[in-house]
């Protein structure tokens, strides 16, 4: 598994980011929420590694804690939307009578740009980490549904599924035994893309003020707060943006590697 460079490098960076976020309380230098007007907009130095923001808060500590929020949102959305997407996709794919209705709803959701949908939902639900997660998950799920439905549609025509049907195996058991296991590999790959895309969406929501409230630092709202000052003190947005981009990139190449690795059609059997 680690012989695949995409998986090794991407996975390595993701693990590093997770560790930084997990151990933020031990790695922080100054409380990320404490403001100090005397230290406003300080350049990076040995006291303030990444400098300070307009309120004199230490950016290094804020970026560490921001990672906690951003990664949590990404992970939660990935789990939630793959879970929901899998369930709906299985139902739509296997119970043909529900397919039309379910898929038209999904088409409707997909017709609205994900950002707009997330803004609308998060405005409706109010800003909190949980609500942001729900808003993004709703926007991301339809893609998972469509993926799973497609897989189920091809699997249900397989001869071994028909053989099971003929021998009286119940539909729910056919789904669990013959269909579900084949969806795991593509689902895992899709989950990584959802993870990355959710982190970007979170940043966008925070950037326009519809995301995580400013009391909880996230990479998105750190960038958002620095947007008025970036022409004077560019580092205020540089570090959170760098962490965000690097993490998204790492997750995406990890997903690519995973896809190559799990692809059954590869020439492993030749």
């Amino acid at each position, binding site marked *: 598994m680690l012989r695949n460079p995409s998986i090794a490098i991407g996975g390595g960076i993701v693990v590093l980011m997770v560790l930084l976020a997990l151990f933020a309380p031990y790695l922080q230098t100054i409380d990320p929420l404490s403001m100090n007007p005397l230290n406003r907009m300080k350049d990076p130095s040995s006291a303030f590694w990444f400098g300070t923001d307009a309120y004199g808060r230490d950016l290094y500590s804020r970026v560490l804690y921001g990672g906690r929020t951003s990664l949590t949102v990404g992970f939660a959305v990935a789990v939630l939307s793959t879970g929901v997407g899998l369930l709906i996709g299985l139902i739509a794919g296997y119970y043909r009578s529900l397919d039309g209705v379910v898929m038209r709803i999904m088409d409707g959701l997909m017709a609205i740009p994900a950002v707009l949908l997330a803004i609308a939902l998060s405005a409706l639900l109010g800003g909190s980490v949980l609500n942001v997660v729900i808003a993004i998950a709703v926007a991301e799920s339809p893609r998972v549904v469509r993926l799973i439905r497609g897989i189920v549609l091809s699997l249900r025509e397989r001869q071994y599924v*028909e053989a*099971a049907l003929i021998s009286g195996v119940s539909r729910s058991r056919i789904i669990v035994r013959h269909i579900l296991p084949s969806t795991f590999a593509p689902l895992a790959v899709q989950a990584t893309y959802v993870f990355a895309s959710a982190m970007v969406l979170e940043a966008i929501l925070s950037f326009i003020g519809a995301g995580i409230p400013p009391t909880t630092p996230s990479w998105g709202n750190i960038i958002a707060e620095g947007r008025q000052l970036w022409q004077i003190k560019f580092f205020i947005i540089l570090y959170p943006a760098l962490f965000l981009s690097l993490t998204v990139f790492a997750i995406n190449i990890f997903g690519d590697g995973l896809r190559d690795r799990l692809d059954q059609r590869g020439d492993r059997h030749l």
Partner: protein
Amino acid sequence: MTTLRTAHGPAETTPADPADEVLSIDGLTTSIRTGQGDRRQGEQRLIEDIGFSVRRGQTLGIVGESGSGKSVTALSIMRLLPRSATVAGRVMLKGRNLTTLSDRQMADVRGDRIGMIFQEPMTSLNPVLPVGLQIEESLRRHKVASGQAARRRAVELLDRVRIPNAARRTAEYPHQLSGGMRQRVMIAMALACNPELLIADEPTTALDVTTQAGIIDLLKQIQADDGTAIMFITHDMGVVAEVSDDVLVMRSGRIVEHGPSQQIFHRPAETYTRQLLNSVPRIGDMRGKPGPAPFASIGDDGAALAPSPLEVAKGPVLRVTDLSVSFRVRNETSRFRRTTLRAVRGVGFDLRAGETLAIVGESGCGKSTLARSIMGLQAVDSGAIEVAGRVATSMTAAEARLARKAIQMVFQDPFASLNPRLRIVDSLTEPLTAHGVSSGGARATAVRLIEEVGLSAEMLDRLPHQFSGGQRQRICIARALALEPEVIVADEAVSALDVSVQAQVLNLLMQLQARRGLALLFISHDMAVVERLSHRVAVMYRGQIVEIGPRAAVFERPAHAYTRRLLSAVPLPDPSRRHKLSGIEELFGTPSAEPSTAAWTDLGDGHRVLAA
């Protein structure tokens, strides 16, 4: 038989004129690197020390079962193998050694000096280009003709392969043509540059028998006209006997036997050749025999067993009455309009315990749809299906599930009908646990079943990919038997298997039938197999049964024109009983056919035919 062919008859009678030698191969050995990266496992020999020659106007048939190296031989000659393969030996085409040519020179030879025809014409033709253009491309590539001349030549070629309205057909795309027509286009492409050698790799395997007869006919005609040397690769002994002057039998990458056709078929020197020939069912073998007969060749099973003549004691275990199935399909002309395709039209028959009823017909005749409807996999429009006395079509889902315990199915493709992730034991016990058998009891049954189909109990914990096609089909049969059914529906159950394996699996089916008194609905396109194991035969054509009756009656006194056509198109594995040239013509297009509302004519003894 043309004068050309007789002039270059069997090698033993006519001394070979070296000037006539088109292709001569010596010590051809192909190996492939296995494994990759740091898991390199070394080399595997695919073919070893292959040597033969083909003369002008001669057809060399190469036969062998899957994995015998017959296709690799062709690809080695054409140098179309992947980079990981290395080819050693000498391949001389008209005195020119192909193995020493550069890739560019070789590309000039391919399509120009050597033409090639593959098994599946749909995948060998470019789906987005009109067929005429594809032929022109070949002409331009080899600088035979260009511009208007190429266009004219393309039409000539299509005409030559007997495609009607050739000028109009050049503008059509591959999907608009039937399988047989596509293969004709492939032949036209292969002939575009008047090659000296034509390599045909299973060119008729994907085609129906009547279409196959037309293609074989065409190849013979072309050879008679141009004196093209043909290398004909196939697994079908009947086809080989039909086309070949000389025959080369291959097994595991080596030549087993090589000689004139008559000698190979009538006086085979090698045991393997004899076994191969014995596994091939021949039409007419069963003349005068009362019931199905197992194959004697394999020795292990079968020989001991002689299925008793049918004892008809009870009423039918499966009764199909006036069954009709139709599909709504997209109209060819309008995206929004749909037309009804009537796949099965008013089909009815009875099947009794211990009896085998074969349903024969060509692709698209509705035989698989019929099987699927009987199994409840396909909704029916009208008609009734009675299984073991219960009407399966008018029950609730739960009742139907119980009723269908009595009828189980074996599918065509043994590689697709077992879940690759489940151990064999799980596939075998699944039907049992679904009907409430405890897991311990189910396991015991699985052991009994797998032994009953000739495999051993320690194989139960393996995964499907560890088995060969024949073994998998045995496992599928075991699974079908798990619920102790009274009827087994076998849809082309042996057509994906090699002949020797096919014979074994057929023997197994006959054995199980005799032991358990099973009724077998055997759906097949293979007339010879059908003759071997069925008690009664029903011929399907365009969704209807056109003739049904005892096997001997249908085969020896076919009453319907279609049945006669089907029977006469089957190639016999006997070179002395070849078909006459232009005996059978392929029917082009779709015959204008609304079902004849004609009545049945009873010819006695249950032999009935639909009057045309």
